[in-house]
């Protein structure tokens, strides 16, 4: 899922300081699962915005809503339900949601309440780690299912780099060296010989280095 984290409240209060009515809009997708922007966080954010504005001597009226997703046009269309009730939207969705509202609502002011951080998962409650970089050319079949693009600090294709110590990354000693884990895992699976194949210089053109990417499925387009 996409992982996000709430921005500092004061930053968001500053965004909405010129408005009297704000729609705080959650998303029931990824940000709901990672507890950054679902219905419960909308309730908390609304309260914090009202308090922040109250401290500044200003009354802010908040309307609360949560869409099934903010990354699909049909759900953004349901913003019609709140027409006339707000001056600006504070979106608690990932950056995709904010972009979608901006794309589809040319005259709507929309502000982000979260920082979108990475694609990851939760191995233990309350902790999320990056697992995928969305590089567009998956090599997991060569690396035992562990991603060196997202999980190696240097995104090496032939690792480890030589700087890891006791299985931990030299850039951040709190995270494991993923190349150590790739070697260990392929050894356990009796596939260690796979590591004798040297990966060629990688073509990063699929990784967004050529600008925003588009994916088209002809069988689904109308």
């Amino acid at each position, binding site marked *: 899922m996409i992982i996000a984290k709430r921005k*500092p*409240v*004061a930053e968001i*209060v500053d965004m909405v300081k010129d408005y009297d009515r704000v729609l705080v809009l959650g998303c029931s997708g990824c940000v709901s699962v990672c507890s950054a922007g679902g219905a*419960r966080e909308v*309730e*908390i954010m609304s*309260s*914090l915005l*009202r*308090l*922040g504005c*109250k*401290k500044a*001597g*200003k*009354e802010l009226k908040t309307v609360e809503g949560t869409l099934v997703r903010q990354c699909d046009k049909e759900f953004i269309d349901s913003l019609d339900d709140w027409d006339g009730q707000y001056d600006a939207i504070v979106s608690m969705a990932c950056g995709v949601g904010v972009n979608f509202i901006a794309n589809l609502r040319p005259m709507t002011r929309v502000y982000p309440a979260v920082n979108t951080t990475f694609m990851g998962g939760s191995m233990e409650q309350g902790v999320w780690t990056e697992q995928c970089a969305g590089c567009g050319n998956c090599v997991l079949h060569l690396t035992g299912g562990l991603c060196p693009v997202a999980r190696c600090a240097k995104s090496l294709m032939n690792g480890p780099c030589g700087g890891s110590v006791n299985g931990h990354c030299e850039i951040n000693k709190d995270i494991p060296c993923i190349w150590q884990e790739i070697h260990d895992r392929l050894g356990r699976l009796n596939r260690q010989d796979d590591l004798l194949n040297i990966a060629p210089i990688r073509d990063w053109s699929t990784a967004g280095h050529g600008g925003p990417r588009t994916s088209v499925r002809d069988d689904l387009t109308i």
Partner: protein
Amino acid sequence: MSFTPNIQAFCCHYTSQQSCTEKGGGLQEDGFPDNITINRLACGGKLQVSSLLEAFENGADGVYVVGCPTDKCHNIMGSQRAAKKVLAVKKALAELEIEPERIEMFHLERGLHPEFITVGKKMAEQIKNLGPCPFNGDFK
């Protein structure tokens, strides 16, 4: 000018038992500040961040939570969960440049003990020293 803070206490069923059965009257006789309102919870684990913020929105100058000792919670993790909610609100208050000391967590034995009165007095004093909560000013 004298200032009597509005203090909201959130107490789990077990740490607020006697105060509830006596409707709080006995507590005041023992010196429990009468400007503290006790809000009873089934368990600290039930407490939501939004409930604590709502207390501030409704005019509280200070808020505190009382739950079981961390290693003796009737519901195992309830008071630890409550403590984390309090920490989340402390962090949010700091982000808004409000004194985080306006909210506190206490872990006390079940039933009525002198400590329940002591922490009440401590909070009453602490919040009085901080003065009125900046959330409670007038709108411009």
